[in-house]
Structures are given as C-alpha cells and as structure tokens.
C-alpha cells in the first residue's frame, strides 16, 4: 500500500510541472499590424507608469480598438517578476515592459529570445529620431533594437544659489573637480552645508558619472574591465578627497537624498536631469534658489558631460498581441505629445530629438533661478560620450559601491581597493 501511494505521489509530482507549461490558450481578440485590436498590459513604475497611463488616451485617438492596462510596481518588484516570468517561459508576463537602460544587456544576455527585436517590426526607421548614445544603449550584441528609447538623463550639478552667494562662490568659475572641492570648502565654512550627497555603501552614481565624462563605463569597447585604469583611479581619488574634506553627506537611499535636498543639508547635487522633477515637487519653497552648472571636468582629460539613468520600452516575445503591443510602443516613444506629457509633469527627459525645439524646452524656468535649464540640458545631449555596457553591469556596480565604502569608510588606499575590485570582477566575469 505504501509503495502504491508513493508511486501515485511521485507520478503527480512529475505530471504537475509538465501541465503548467501549457497554460490554456484562451482565444484573445487581436487585430493585425494595420488595425491592432484587443487588450495589452504594460508594466512600469512610479512617474513613468503614471505617464504611460495618461498617454493611453492620446494613443486611443489613433488606435481606438486597443485597450491598454498599465500596472504600476516598484522597479525592484518589477524586475523580480520579470525575471521569474522569463525563466518560466513567459507565464504571467505583460505585453510591454519598462526597463532601465543599464539593465537591458543583462536581460538580453540571460534571455536571448526573451524580447522582440523591434527593428524587425519596422522600428528601424526611427533610428535617427533619437540621440545616438541612447540608440546604442537599446541595441543588443547583434545590433538589433531590443527596446524603444524613451527618456534619458543628461547630468549636471544642481546647486543652491543662495549658499553660493553667501559663500561668495561663482558657479561659472568651477571648471574642474579641484575647483569644485575648493568651492565646497568655502561653502561649508560660510553656511555649514556639506557639498554633495553620496550613498556611500549602496550607490556609485558619482563614480559612474566621472567615468562617463572620460568616455568609459566599468568596461571599455573591448569588454575589458576599466577599474584599474587611470580614469578610474582619478575618479575614486576625487571622491576620496571630497570625503576627507568632510564635504560628503552620506545619505541613506533615495529618501535620504530627498530629505537632504529639502532640508538644505547639501549645497549641490550632481545628478540626472530628471531630478529637477523631484526638487520642484518636494521643495516648492526653495523656488529661485536652485540652478545648475555642468559637471566639473578632470584637468587631465575628458568632457563635462555624462548621463544618469534613462529607460526604454521592451516587448516580451511571449506577447499574445504583438501588433497592439508594437503599435503602443511605437506610438508612445515617437509621439511628441505623449513624450511632452512625461516631461512637463514628471521631468522625464525625452530622447526624441524633435521635442527639444518646443517652447517648453527653450523657456526660462522660474523655479531654476530664471535660467533656461532644460535647453541647457538639451544642448549637451549630443555631447555625452558614448559608453559601452554589458551584462555584468549589476555586478560591477555592486563591486564598485563596495569599493567606494572600503575606500571612504575603512580607509583602504584607492589603488589597492580598485585593484581588488578589478580582480573580483574579473573572477566573476570568467564564468
């Protein structure tokens, strides 16, 4: 009897997982490429999800037969659900999904068949409508456009006009990182505020910006790790100098940086353009007290331009309504009105170039000290050095954050720390 029971149970075990693969395929209403119809689901988060939701109305003017359901998760949850769904051969996945650009190589490496190559559906014709660095970021190794470009994050240093005036520091005179440090010391003396926030143990954003200014990511074009390059040493050394001069505010996470912004704990914040939305939203009282200068450069080499963040839209290849999903992605990313919706309301900076001439872009911003801040960001979009990322981005970023905390918090010499980091990343990448 026992044996018999076990036999049944083992049988059940073997059959159950086999069943789950063939989910009952209900007949869904879909149209064809010319007249898409039916319902699609879109995953996004936060302000991006809000933008997607609001743009549906505009989309439906052109495609009245398509229903769009936008679901809003935190980005961490979204990635987890996406990973699990892809690993389970597409069960429970949406028709369109939002993804940060630096995550794209990781996903296309892990799941080479996971997403539709948009160029094969006709997206190729828009290649020149976007800024080239962004287009490069959404391509896979074979040059297929895996994602449709949405927003980008040209970087600058947001600063407190009143603090700079009080300390008698001229923002235009800050050309190099050395100038920046000197200015920081003066400002600290005059106002008590620290110069910039860095989430030391969890986020290496400043380091990444500094690397991109010099034309590198954690990897060069040949996929070689750059952590022991002179560029990386320079970047980490400047961060160390800033910390040693007690100019770094060690913020904990996103809430920490927002609190520091609102409370006036820091005088400057080097970040992507999308942070304007948060500043305006969270600190309405500081109107007129914020402005922006471009990133300081390294005196040895490099530019004053970098990019932080940005995301794109992908279509999982398991979608049951490809025509409607593509219609939505194509429409949303190339439609000025939808793009401006996200820009005006939430500060999501489009990569669609022909939006940059619109009056909303060129106007002076009252909040930002009456300067044409968005025009100035738009002007540098073409100047941002193209960098090469690969599937090891997440690992590299983690290792660099750890290196940053060992250099700043545990006093490990910059060269040793970077050498160890390079070695660790090499080990990880061998696999």
């Amino acid at each position, binding site marked *: *009897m026992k044996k018999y*029971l076990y036999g049944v*149970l083992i049988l*059940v*075990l073997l059959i*159950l*997982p086999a069943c789950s693969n063939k989910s009952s395929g209900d007949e869904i209403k879909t149209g064809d490429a010319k007249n898409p119809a039916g319902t699609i689901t879109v995953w996004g988060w936060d302000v991006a999800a809000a933008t997607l939701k609001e743009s549906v109305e505009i989309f439906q003017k052109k495609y009245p037969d398509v229903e769009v359901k936008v679901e809003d998760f935190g980005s961490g949850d979204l990635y*987890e659900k996406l*990973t699990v769904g*892809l*690993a389970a*051969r597409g069960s429970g996945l949406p028709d369109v999904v939002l993804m940060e650009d630096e995550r794209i190589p*990781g996903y296309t*490496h*892990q*799941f*080479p*068949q*996971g997403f539709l190559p948009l160029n094969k559906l006709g997206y190729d014709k828009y290649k020149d409508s976007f800024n080239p660095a962004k287009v490069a970021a959404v391509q896979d190794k074979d040059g297929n456009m895996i994602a449709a470009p949405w927003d980008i994050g040209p970087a600058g240093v947001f600063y407190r006009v009143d603090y700079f005036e009080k300390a008698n520091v001229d923002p235009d005179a800050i050309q190099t990182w050395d100038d920046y440090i000197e200015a920081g010391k003066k400002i600290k003396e005059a106002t008590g505020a620290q110069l910039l926030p860095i989430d*030391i*143990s*969890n986020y290496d954003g400043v380091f990444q910006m500094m690397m991109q200014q010099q034309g590198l990511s954690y990897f060069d074009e040949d996929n070689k790790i750059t952590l022991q390059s002179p560029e990386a040493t320079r970047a980490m050394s400047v961060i160390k100098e800033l910390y040693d001069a007690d100019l770094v*505010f*060690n*913020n*904990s996470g996103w809430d*920490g940086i927002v*609190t*520091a912004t609102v409370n006036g*704990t820091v005088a400057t914040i080097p970040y992507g353009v999308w942070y304007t939305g948060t500043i305006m939203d969270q600190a309405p009282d500081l109107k007129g007290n914020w402005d922006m200068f471009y990133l300081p450069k390294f005196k040895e080499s490099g530019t004053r331009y970098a990019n932080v963040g940005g995301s794109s839209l992908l279509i999982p290849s398991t979608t049951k309504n490809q025509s409607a999903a593509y219609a939505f992605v194509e429409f949303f990313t190339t439609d000025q009105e939808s793009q401006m919706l996200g820009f005006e309301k939430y500060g999501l900076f489009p990569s669609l170039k022909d939006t940059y001439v619109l009056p909303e872009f060129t106007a002076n911003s009252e909040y930002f000290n009456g300067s044409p801040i968005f025009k100035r960001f738009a002007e540098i979009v073409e100047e941002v050095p193209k960098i090469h990322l690969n599937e090891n981005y*997440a*690992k590299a970023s*983690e290792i660099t*954050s*750890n*290196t940053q*905390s*060992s250099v700043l*918090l*545990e006093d490990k010499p910059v060269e040793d720390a970077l050498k160890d980091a390079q070695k*660790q990343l090499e*080990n990880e990448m061998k*696999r």
Partner: protein
Amino acid sequence: MGKVEIKTNAPINYQLKTRKKWLTPKRAPYVFIAPAIILMLIFTVYPVLSSFILSFQEVRGIEKTFVGFSNYTRLFQDPVFYKSLLNTFQLLIIQVPIMVSLALLIAVGLHSSMVKGRTLFRIAFFMPAITALIAASIVFMILLDEHFGLVNYFLSLFGIEGIKWLTSPFWAKASVILVMTWRWTGYNMVIFLAGLQNIPSDLYEAASIDGAGKVKQFFWITIPQLKPVFIFTVVMSTIGTLQLFDEPFILTAGGPNNATTTITLYLYETGFKYFEFGYASAIAYVLVLITAIISWIQMKLVGDDDK
C-alpha cells in the same frame, strides 16, 4: 421497499466487502493525511529536489546545462561567500546567547508572583514576534537613520553624536543584532515561561527548607530543569539566525561593503539580481549542510548526559 426486506444479508455483505477494499481502518489515516502530504510534496519536496539538481547546473535564461561540481568549487573560492559566512557566524555567536539569556531573565521575572500586571508584560514582550517584519524593519531604519533618526537625536541630548547605525560596518552589525533581539526575545521568553510552569514547586520548597537562597535555587533548580527548553530555543534560534534575511535586507541591503551580507541574502542576490540560479542553489545546499551539522553538534553537546 418490500423487496429490500425480503433480501438476505448476502448482498449487504458483498457491498461492505467492496467498500472495505478502499477504506479500511488501516488505510483511513493515509487518506486523511493525504492532502497535507500532497501539498508538502508539491511545495516542499519537489522544490527541494529540483534545486538540488539545479545546483549542478548552470542556468542561462531557460536553458540549463550540467556543469558537475563547478558551482560548488566556485563557492569555495568566492570571497563574498566567505564573508557572508563569517558575518552570519558573528551574528550567531553574539546574538543568540544575548537573546536567550535575556529571554530567560524576563521569563523568570514574569514567572515570579511579585510582579504585577504579568499578562500585560507578557503580551508586550511577545508583540514584536507577531509584527510584520518588513514593517518593523522599516520603522527601525527610520529610527536608526544617521542624520535624521530619533535614536541619534536622543543620544545627542546626552552628548553622544552621530553614531553611524547603518553606515559603519561595526554599527550596522550591531543594529541588525538589536533588531533581531527586539523581535525574538519575547518569542523565546514564552517558551521559557512554559518550561518554568512545568517545574514542580516542591523542588523549590525542599530547597528553601534546606536553606538555599533564591540565587542558588535559580542556578541549581531552575536552569537544570529548563535544559530541554534551552536545547529547543538555542537550536531554533541558531537555525533562524543561519537563515537570517529580512532584517539586513531591509535595514542595510547587506552593506556597507558586505558587512551585513548573510548567507541567505547572498543567495537571494545571486539568484534574483545576477540570475545565477544554479549557483544560488549550491549556496542553499551548503547552508543546509552547515545548519544540519551545527544543530547536530548542539544536540550532542547539550543533550548527551540525559541518555
């Protein structure tokens, strides 16, 4: 109706016989436990087995290839794994004794008839154990914030400035220990209380007639009598600590520089952040092995002379 009455017993016996085939008193228990067993097989045994197979595979997307023991050999050369192992053991060695002794002290206190409002205190101490961990960890994260947290504000009133609760490697560990202790002391206290109630009171009476004071009674009666409870709490706490995940995940995300990365946190990151499910499964199996060995040693050490 009439026809039935006329019928002999024979067909009825026959019916009973066929029924008997399926549901005898002997088999009935199996039928009753079947739902639970089937669920356990699907949701526990099956994943356990399949992750064991997974630990010998490399997973890329939906393709799996057998790689033999390479996940395990990699594990033994992985500095982050060693660090997470070390962290876990540091937490274990420091936290469990503190918590168990605290739980015992509180239990003895609440057991004595001198304390008023015992039920209230019991509930108060037990509450953390039934609080949602994520919510609790977020509250602690806010309390312990280096710049804006309440804890540092109070300390500053006494002239202690800016303890980096979550951002220095040392204090981050201390914070994790603090939160773990806050959460689990009450739980262990309840177990000790139950144990205390089982100690016969004539032991104490006899001791006090012999002239033993309260302290002597505690060390010579209470503690030896609580031995099985000790074994239970220590083993359970050890297993719990070896599987520690929520507190560091929310409080510090394993930082700074992996100072609070525990084995399970590393396992999770390996699987869900870096997509290496095969390697993550190997970590899981090594953790199972370690847990089994330590539990076995603890049972041997404490329990031997009972037999």
